[in-house]
């Protein structure tokens, strides 16, 4: 009898845990929003939400690509460097107009991603190491291209990307939202997406099932590079300057954190796009809350550490014993 009740209790707890694992990040975002509504001055203003979304947009775009890579059991440490590369190219070609400049930045991002993918898929190097090389060298290259200089940008059309609105919503937020939808469809509905997840789940089996493993991997890293370049372009437009020395600094860690906090495990085989978006929003709100309450850097870093641990603890894959 006691045994039975114990079982029932156990199942209930398991169910709660499962539910939290699935929806934890949404709960956390909601909780943090509530906290801010009550304890943060001037939180409930349109301008504030706008700020949070605008700041989150580039991270979100990078995190989308990162989520795909993590889904294949990989990781891409070079995203920040790719952002810097993209940024360094903008001023060189802005003279020819914003479209060619952006196009070149994106092509280079795509190429950098493809290179990573090639190293991972064809040469067979561990993703961390393969992308570490570009993390170390990429920013240096960007600085070489830019001559180490920050360049102020004045092209109105280009800057519009960073400051402009469309139907009352900032353009960068539109782009991030649109890309999120595209990625969700890509993962959920396309051959490519399903293959990606299968490869992350069991690479040997996928290869034996005739899936084009290498091509898919290259594709995934290429998309990640491309998205990093998009983020680089948007961040540059928002800053109204090309700043290869600092743009995207530590972006890889922010993006990975967001993806993992959003419930995508680093072990691959699963991609949660909505979770990732909320992971980004959660971390953005955490940062905003810490700044708005004027906490010193030391406390802020320790609080962030604690939040990451708790969020990931809740979202972790459980083993049944």
């Amino acid at each position, binding site marked *: 009898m006691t045994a039975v009740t114990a079982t029932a209790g156990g199942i209930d707890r398991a169910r709660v845990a499962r539910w939290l694992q699935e929806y934890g990040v949404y709960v956390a975002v909601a909780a943090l929003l509530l906290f801010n509504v009550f304890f943060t001055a*001037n939180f409930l203003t349109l301008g504030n939400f706008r700020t949070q979304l605008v700041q989150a947009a580039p991270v979100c775009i990078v995190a989308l690509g990162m989520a795909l890579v993590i889904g294949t059991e990989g990781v891409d440490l070079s995203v920040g460097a790719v952002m810097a590369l993209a940024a360094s190219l903008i001023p060189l070609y802005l003279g020819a107009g914003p479209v060619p400049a952006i196009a070149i930045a994106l092509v280079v991002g795509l190429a950098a991603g493809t290179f990573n993918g090639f190293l991972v898929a064809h040469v067979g190097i561990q993703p961390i190491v393969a992308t570490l090389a570009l993390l170390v060298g990429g920013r240096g290259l960007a600085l070489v291209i830019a001559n180490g200089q920050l360049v102020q940008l004045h092209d109105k059309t280009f800057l519009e990307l960073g400051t402009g609105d469309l139907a009352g919503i900032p353009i960068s937020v539109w782009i991030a939202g649109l890309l999120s939808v595209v990625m969700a469809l890509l993962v959920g509905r396309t051959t490519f997406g399903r293959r990606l997840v299968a490869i992350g789940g069991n690479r040997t089996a996928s290869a034996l099932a005739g899936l084009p493993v290498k091509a898919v991997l290259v594709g995934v890293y290429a998309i990640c590079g491309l998205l990093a370049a998009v983020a680089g372009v948007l961040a540059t437009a928002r800053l109204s300057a090309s700043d290869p020395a600092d743009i995207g600094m530590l972006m890889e860690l922010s993006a990975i954190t967001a993806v993992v906090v959003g419930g995508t495990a680093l072990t691959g085989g699963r991609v949660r796009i909505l979770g990732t978006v909320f992971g980004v929003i959660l971390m953005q709100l955490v940062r905003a809350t810490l700044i708005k309450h004027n906490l010193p850097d030391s406390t802020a870093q320790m609080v962030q550490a604690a939040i990451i641990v708790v969020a990931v603890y809740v979202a972790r894959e459980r083993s049944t014993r």
Partner: protein
Amino acid sequence: TSREAETTSQTGSGPAASAAASQASGPGCTLEKTGYPKVDVKSAIVGFSQSEKEANPFRIAETQSIKDEAAKLGIASDKLLVTNAQSDLNKQISDIKSMLDRGAQLLIVAPLNSDGLQPALDAAKAKKVPVVTIDRKVTSAACTDYLTFIGSNFVEQGKRAAAEMVRVTGGTGKVAILLGSSGNNVTTDRTKGFKDELAKTAGLSVVAEQTGEFDRSKGQAVMEQLIQSNPDITAVYAENDEMGIGAVTALKAAGKNPGKDVKIVSIDGTKNAVQLVADGGYNAVVESNPRFGPLSFKVLQDFADGKEISENVVISDDQYDETNASQKLGNAY
């Protein structure tokens, strides 16, 4: 170059003159006292250890100034050794040691940090090589561990920024501080100087201080947050120009009028910031002068000539405000 000439010529004449007179402080140091050999600067092997990548205007101008002055003095390019520590303290130590190995007879060092260079200084001392530290003072002993420090007084810069702040705000308002990187003593000094000076004016209070890591985009992001939660901020003190410019972008986006509704004062003197002052979107910039070339070599020459070298050689820091920004734009780096 013309720019250096300008700087040198302005020493002691601009509005900054009083604060930036390169007066001797502390007992002097002489060749005799140290027992170092006399070295002819023009034919010596000179080593310059830069601390960070040349990826911002200050560092670029600083390295360039050393190189230019060496060229001007006719020092052969293979006799000027230049290293860059890439923000790695251990690397700076081995950089310095390796330049000593390679026969450097005179050293100019831009320390990455005030503390921690002792092993490198000891190595120089062992080889009787005088070390001039520039832009950042180290905590070791002058004349024994190193020859002298040439640079700005960061606390003083903070104070001057505060004085400017009082001037441009008329002595009332709420100030937000954009701090530099945590753990960096430039940040510490500029904050201390600013706060100490500001405390003398009752009408001004600091309502927020958050780190922008000396980075434009971080400064912008932090400012965006602050302006939302504290819409009554009327002034911003940024510990470098980059963060100040980031703040300008943030304020504009929030519908504020930087330079008018919200006053901005920062430290550095980069072209972009001074241009903003000239355009009226920014209130004042306290210069942190990176052109150490002429002074460094002059000090080394004086030392070789047996003259007395003071412990601190303060480089003159200029100041830009609405009255002089447009004329002095060429002077910004």
